[in-house]
């Protein structure tokens, strides 16, 4: 499994959430660390798109694409702070 970062899912996140989130700050619900989504650890070569906390490796989010649906598990993020689109 090759580790990428949040830049690699920028397009998918924009598809799902309607805005760029790579510059957003995510708080890890496991360890409390705050990090930029762009710098999260990302794996794209598994069954889903896995985003992990760079500080503690806990799952931040998982996005699985099945039968035309984006299934998003956000339970690993306790807060997300993103700029308002200008």
């Amino acid at each position, binding site marked *: 499994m*090759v580790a*990428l970062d949040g830049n*690699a899912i*920028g*397009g998918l996140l*924009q598809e799902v959430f309607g805005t*760029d989130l*790579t510059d957003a700050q995510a708080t890890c619900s496991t360890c409390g660390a705050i990090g930029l989504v*762009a710098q999260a650890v990302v794996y794209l070569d598994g069954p889903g798109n896995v985003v992990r906390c760079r500080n503690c490796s806990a799952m931040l989010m998982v996005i699985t694409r099945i039968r035309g649906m984006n299934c998003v598990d956000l339970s690993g993020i306790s807060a997300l702070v993103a700029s308002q*689109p200008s």
Partner: protein
Amino acid sequence: MEGTAVPGRLTWQVATVTAARWETPSVRTIELDVPSWPGHRAGQHLDVKLTAEDGYSAERSYSIASAAAEQVAIAVERLDDGEVSPYLTDGLDVGDELELRGPVGGYFVWEKGDGGPLMLVGGGSGIVPLRAILRERERTGSDVPVRLLYSARTYADLIYRDELAAHRDGVEVFYSLTREQPAGWAGYTRRVDPGLLAETAWPEGRNPLAFVCGPTSFVEAVAAELVALGYPSGRVKTERFGGT
């Protein structure tokens, strides 16, 4: 699906290849005419989707090699075991169509107002978004000083070699060729390590802004070393391409 009219939502669209040229034996620049392109910023990327006749599709991201307001161009490196890249480098012709979405990314971007001095560190194809940043600097008449450290395996693997070698006021370029060097080579010959960075990076007292791009292990080593040199981690922007 609805959504094409929603502001901010990315949609897939069909682009046409208007030009293609080899930069190195394994890297090809592809210029694209994208009908509904909203414009882009230096450092952003776009996503390409290839769909087979049976409906199977594969998506990959490629950094945009052009400055804002320039025609969209990407540079694709052929990976021997790649699922997508061999088609883009060896199968695609001028006039062919490509499904893509973009531009993507609001973090790994540079605009004139972001200032500098800039510390650009690229490994292999990681040079592509850095070249976009250099072109943006030139396009906007910015005079922020730049140091570019570019690591590649061999001289033949240097992408945009002639463009980077052309004299530019305020831009210093350092090269490291890690596998093989031409006779008389005066540049570095080893992987980027703390000593090499200490010799080439802006001192942290200049408040530099760093952009590091390339294979994941390269980016992580360089970013850690820049932070060790005193760069605030918030001033070291990273984009990992995977690979080794």
